């Protein structure tokens, strides 16, 4: 107990020390916060800390979900550098952004998701606001739904889902429920389980869907499976909330990655959508993202916008501008935009090729296991299917760091360490 540990300095021989100890005791007693407990340690941070302490020159960090180039270094996109140079020339001011972010940013962002010429933004049906990257956009969305969604206040999430979805939704006042998603037997999509569970969701509930590059599994439904899900979700009168954090980053094709979102809209759903530029533009720390609601009329969109602003203002008043300006510059400047499409395809291609190399190297090692899921899965992460004891061994014996659930960040693999990784994985799984 911390009172006792704080008495470690007590030494009976010194009156002064006694007084110190007493004042320490009384200060804890008078403190407003002596009851505050340490929060649980962050599992991913824990992985990184342990990685940093490891002195093995072959160590690999497959924990954190940030892109790395083939030298294992953070990557600043050429399009981003170019955009920053353009922005610097403009000598822009530091005046407050509108609460909802710049209209230009919001328009470019929703049009990225829905297509440049889409009928929804053309008809003013979207209410789009800048958010603090993906997390902040989800937070705005869940706050809005908590206050205004006319149906059940439970948000149904796939099993598993991004670790932060659950506390975030709960913090916003929503209940959290699950639907089957990942099949550990196949390391693939539990399509029938998902459909069964979705069909059981009470009408007029909310359902969270990862638009592409499911986090943490990397398992995405196929287009025909998305079509089925859309049908059931419509029949059950469920409200789809898409989390799209990897548009472009998954397949290298922005339209392909956004296809499920566009499909649902075409199928007549009204949706909520959270977008992030953290990965696809490498703007992680600049916190650029957006939340959108697609409404049934211009008036509805306007009313919704006004309520979204009322939610944002008491959170942080108005959003940070730098990341949003970069994204806007890239999306609205034709040569920067085409550079960006090359950059994002480059990242996606490198990840896809690492998947291919990992799989082929495992075969070369002589592994008899089916590793098809490594290349079937998509995006930053791969659910390897390794068990916690296998993960532990991988870390202990080979200094390969990953989360207990067997998830690896493919971005942490390079052409120089993929053979070592395959060797290590084979050793612990054979």
């Amino acid at each position, binding site marked *: 107990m911390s009172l006792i540990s704080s008495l470690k300095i007590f030494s009976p021989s010194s009156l002064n020390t006694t007084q110190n100890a007493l004042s320490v005791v009384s200060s804890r007693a008078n403190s407003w916060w002596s009851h*505050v407990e*340490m929060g649980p340690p962050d599992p991913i941070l824990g992985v990184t800390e342990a990685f940093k302490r490891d002195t093995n020159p072959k160590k690999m960090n497959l924990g954190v979900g940030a892109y790395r180039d083939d030298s294992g270094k953070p990557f600043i996109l050429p399009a981003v550098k170019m955009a920053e140079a353009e922005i610097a020339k403009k000598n822009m001011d530091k005046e407050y952004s509108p609460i909802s972010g710049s209209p230009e940013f919001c328009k470019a962002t929703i049009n990225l998701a829905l297509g440049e010429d889409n009928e929804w933004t053309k008809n003013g049906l979207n209410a789009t606001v800048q958010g603090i990257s993906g*997390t902040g956009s989800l*937070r705005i969305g869940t706050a809005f739904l908590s206050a205004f*969604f006319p149906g059940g206040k439970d948000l149904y999430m796939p099993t598993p889902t991004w670790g932060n979805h659950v*506390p975030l939704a709960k913090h916003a006042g929503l209940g959290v429920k699950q639907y089957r998603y990942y099949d550990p037997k196949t390391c693939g999509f539990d399509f029938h389980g998902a459909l069964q569970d979705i069909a059981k969701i009470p009408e007029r509930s909310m359902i969270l869907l990862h638009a592409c590059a499911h986090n943490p599994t990397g398992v995405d439904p196929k287009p025909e499976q998305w079509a089925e899900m859309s049908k059931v979700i419509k029949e059950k009168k469920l409200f789809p909330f898409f989390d799209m954090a990897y548009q472009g980053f998954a397949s290298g094709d922005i339209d392909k990655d956004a296809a499920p979102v566009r499909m649902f809209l075409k199928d007549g759903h009204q949706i909520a959508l959270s977008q992030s530029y953290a990965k696809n533009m490498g703007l992680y720390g600049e916190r650029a993202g957006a939340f959108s609601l697609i409404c049934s009329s211009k008036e509805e969109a306007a009313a919704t916008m006004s309520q979204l*602003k009322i939610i944002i203002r008491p*959170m*942080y008043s108005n*959003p940070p501008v730098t990341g949003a300006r970069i994204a806007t510059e890239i999306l609205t400047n034709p040569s920067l935009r085409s550079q960006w499409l090359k950059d994002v395809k480059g990242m996606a291609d490198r990840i896809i090729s690492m998947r291919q190399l990992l799989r082929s190297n495992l075969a070369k090692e002589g592994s008899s296991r089916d590793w098809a899921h490594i290349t079937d899965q998509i995006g930053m992460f791969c659910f390897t299917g390794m068990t916690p004891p296998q993960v532990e061994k991988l870390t202990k014996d080979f200094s390969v760091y990953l989360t207990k659930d067997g998830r690896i960040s493919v971005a942490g693999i390079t052409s120089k360490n993929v053979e070592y990784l395959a060797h290590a994985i084979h050793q612990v799984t054979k």
Partner: protein
Amino acid sequence: KFASVESAPPIEVFALNKAYVEDTFPQKVNLGVGAYRTDEGKPWVLPVVRHMEQKLAADETLNKEYLPVLGYEPLASAATRMLLGSDSASLKEGRATGIQCLSGTGALRVGAEFLAHIGKHSIVYSSNPTWGNHSLVFLNAGFTSYRSYRYWDAAKKALDFDGLMEDLRNAPENSVIILHACAHNPTGVDPTQDQWRQIADLIEERQLFPFFDSAYQGFASGDLDRDAWAVRYFDSRGFEMVCAQSFAKNFGLYNERVGNLTFVAKDRSVIEPVRSQITLLVRANYSNPPNHGARIVGTVLNDPVLTEQWKSHIKTMADRIISMRLGLRERLEKLETPGTWNHITDQIGMFSFTGLGPLAVDKLIADHHIYLLKGGRINMCGLNTGNIDYVAKCIHEVVTTTQE
């Protein structure tokens, strides 16, 4: 699905700004939104900020990786040190800590969420009047009761100190009390040092919790230490408290959202648990704060040369505002505008509570294209040598022709 969502009422200060922007009258004056303007009526990006941005852009070692959840540590520690002063006992004893937040609003929100969810406080008081967003921040953060303590004496155009003390005396134990560290928004009226001492005595006696809102350190008097006097006084008295700090005005970094939440505890052993709980709150709200503004402020505050440069910018801004206060008061007194006008120079900071009533305000907007908030608050930064004569003349005109 959302057909029943009603349109929310427009937020006054933004609606006012919109009306100003759409007004085509050539002599229009914007005394609404709280941002600094030069004597040419233009926004001012501080030279030290421009310099830093160029330096950061040229630094090949920098990247765009996520900051830690609690922010850029060089910024947080420097901001806390700037607030409490390097002589602070709590700082020296490791009982004070800083957490980067999304400007002042974000710091208020994180602090309020911590106090509500973890500290289990439910009642919060702020001054009447206060910044328009205080109540929503705290109520959305989980407080169940938002109350006011008297502050502005409209008749005397000064602090209603007796009213303030009486209301705090009647506040239930554990109530959180929002205190404006300096340059009270919207009135510009600050307690004297002696009044602060009495407030501190009362807060201690009644077991209330002080939550300082420091949005103008340096910007008010031109002197960082002077503007932090109240916070430092409470710190020296051994209070546990939090303080939301904004770098929007004093660094002119409005849209980069740079802020800090300073946390002072009685015992250093609570600091880590508190930080870990705040980590969970931040993660559920926005994961981690933005990088760009943090690097600017964090670098400047940790570099003595750049800090001196910055201090000279603050003095420039504060001095210009003070000269506008003098100028407006002089003109109104020269015109013999009915009423007393010493409050304009007694008050401090960006804002002045003019004492103008709603009818006079309406007239100023409709007839003279001078935009100010309904409560009579003007932004001194909106005044400059080019428009001060016009504004004084119009104030004289509406005061002499309006019966409130």
